[in-house]
């Protein structure tokens, strides 16, 4: 079992619902401070989005943030360098599209993630069928490969995908790209289908944009991922203390 999963299982055993905020790396010069603020606000792990020019599964908010970050010159190397200054000690998970790693080199990518304290990676466009080599190199670097399960994933397939997912299983609450939503959609059914086949911690994401929704999702899962709502806040100029307040409101709802 990779370190990330061990930590997250431990978290679950502690009875605490995991709160995983998502940041677009390099979105502001002080983005690492935002990450720290989130940890102060109660985040249990942090998702670090590595911006890609063509974020196929992301909605307008994260698209805009990715583009802005790219214009500021963010690269794997730059963001890993930035992370060296991170003072909080919290599990980190990278999220990006496969071409970034493919181009950087798979082995080199996994090594870089590990060296930067990133214990897992979500690569939403890397389907299970294409993930073999990536999984192999991640194994060498103790990087957990996190897969998504979607409402459209057949039950036969849930078994395979969930089994392959390390650290946690990303349960997609709806058939939609990242963004804000008014309910937790199909989360219960998706989490149920995962639980039926494995006991890996299962977090709900996609559209968890209010504490209220986080609470609902937390009730039926092991944790939540909060993306667009937080990124929106930062795009609109929030400072670290506002980030902390925002994350704290979710923490409060989950506890």
């Amino acid at each position: 079992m990779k370190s990330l999963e061990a930590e997250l299982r431990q978290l679950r055993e502690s009875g605490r619902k995991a709160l995983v905020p998502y940041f677009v790396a390099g979105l502001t010069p002080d983005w690492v401070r935002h990450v720290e603020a989130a940890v102060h606000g109660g985040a249990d792990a942090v998702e670090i989005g590595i911006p890609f020019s063509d974020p196929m599964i992301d909605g307008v908010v994260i698209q805009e943030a990715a583009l802005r970050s790219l214009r500021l010159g963010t690269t794997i190397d730059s963001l890993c360098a930035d992370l060296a200054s991170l003072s909080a000690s919290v599990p980190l998970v990278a999220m990006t599209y496969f071409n970034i790693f493919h181009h950087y080199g798979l082995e080199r990518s996994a090594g870089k993630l590990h060296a930067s304290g990133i214990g897992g990676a979500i690569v939403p466009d890397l389907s299970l069928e294409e993930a073999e080599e990536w999984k192999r190199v991640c194994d060498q670097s103790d990087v957990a490969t996190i897969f998504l399960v979607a409402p459209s994933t057949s039950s036969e397939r849930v078994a395979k995908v969930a089994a392959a997912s390390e650290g946690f299983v990303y349960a997609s609450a709806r058939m939609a790209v990242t963004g804000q939503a008014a309910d937790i959609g199909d989360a219960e059914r998706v989490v149920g289908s995962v639980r039926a086949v494995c006991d890996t911690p299962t977090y709900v994401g996609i559209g968890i944009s209010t504490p209220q929704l986080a609470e609902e999702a937390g009730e039926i899962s092991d944790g939540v991922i909060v993306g667009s709502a937080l990124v929106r806040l930062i795009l609109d100029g929030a400072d670290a203390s506002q980030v902390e307040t925002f994350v704290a409101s979710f923490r409060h709802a989950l506890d």
Partner: protein
Amino acid sequence: MADGAVFMSSPDERGHFGSFGGRFVPEALIAACLEVEFAFRDAWSDAEFVEEYQRVLHQFAGRPTPVTPLDRLSSHLGLRVYAKREDLAHTGSHKINNVIGQTLLAKRMGKSRVIAETGAGQHGVATATAAARLGLECTVFMGELDTVRQELNVFRMQLLGATVVPVLSGSRTLKDAVNEAMREWVTCVENTHYCLGSVMGPHPFPWMVRELQSIIGHEAARQLDELGVGTPDLVVACVGGGSNAAGVFAGFANTPARLVGIEAAGGSAVGKGSPGVLHGMRSLLMQDEFGQIEEAFSISAGLDYPGIGPEHAYLAESGRAEYYAIGDEDVIGALQLLSELEGIIPALETAHAVAWIAQEAGKSIGAGSTVLLNLSGRGDKDVAQVRAILDDKS
């Protein structure tokens, strides 16, 4: 090139052509891709479906398109050039072959709606056309910049009853329209088929679109036989995503003919690209040193794509097909050449292939060679642009 290798048969079960292809999509779309794959496998081996597809192409889209001997161009170049006339297909390019097949498939799958991406609007117009015929709802995603540059094609799609959605993300051009169509598809896979416009995207699209376009090559091979030409020395086609090239190559992949794909210099995924993953496929892509996708720039909107279909990447790697690039500066002259000598105004996309043939005649194309040019589309859509360019020059 491996001896005895068979080209352009099916990809492996995961949709790979060598190391290219595959299915790099969000988990949410896996089921939809599988549904399309199974439905297409089933339909394509169902004689009734194939017959219906062929019947519609015949009765509605005007197939078979002719092979025209280009006598005056041939004398001019010292070659024997023949054109496969996809410009005569309904809506003015080969794009209709693919959309007829996919809309029939959509209906067979019980979908009530199709979505599509489009750059210049050719694939969008074709999709709107095929959808109208079947009474399917149709939404076309088009980069906002392209909606402005190609406003008449936007109106055409609207006349055909389609909704055109301007895409505001990224570079606001074709590659973003693909992203946006994928994003939309995630939300509506239940009732919607994504009618992809070239031999790209996740498995089964590159294979399916090639199959649906292979009628070009099969017809052409038969027609060249009837003309007494037999197997040509070269088969030349322009390459954006690569669907017209794949379609015509399919008729000659296992003959001795040289297969040549011509990219726009500003969208040259083979010439300037490297392996990468985008839009659901592993292929050759134009990207920067960090793996960010570069925008393509070409005089012809239809070649303005930073990638290439994965099977082409494989054909290039294996050496079975050759790919070259032609710069904007040579395209207008080639369009004029074909217009004046043959009375056929080709699409700017096609003019790239013409330019290469003209450039290589007597050089890498030996004098007297027989050349099959895939005349992928007509230039009507481009004349305003060509005029503006010529006005600027003078």
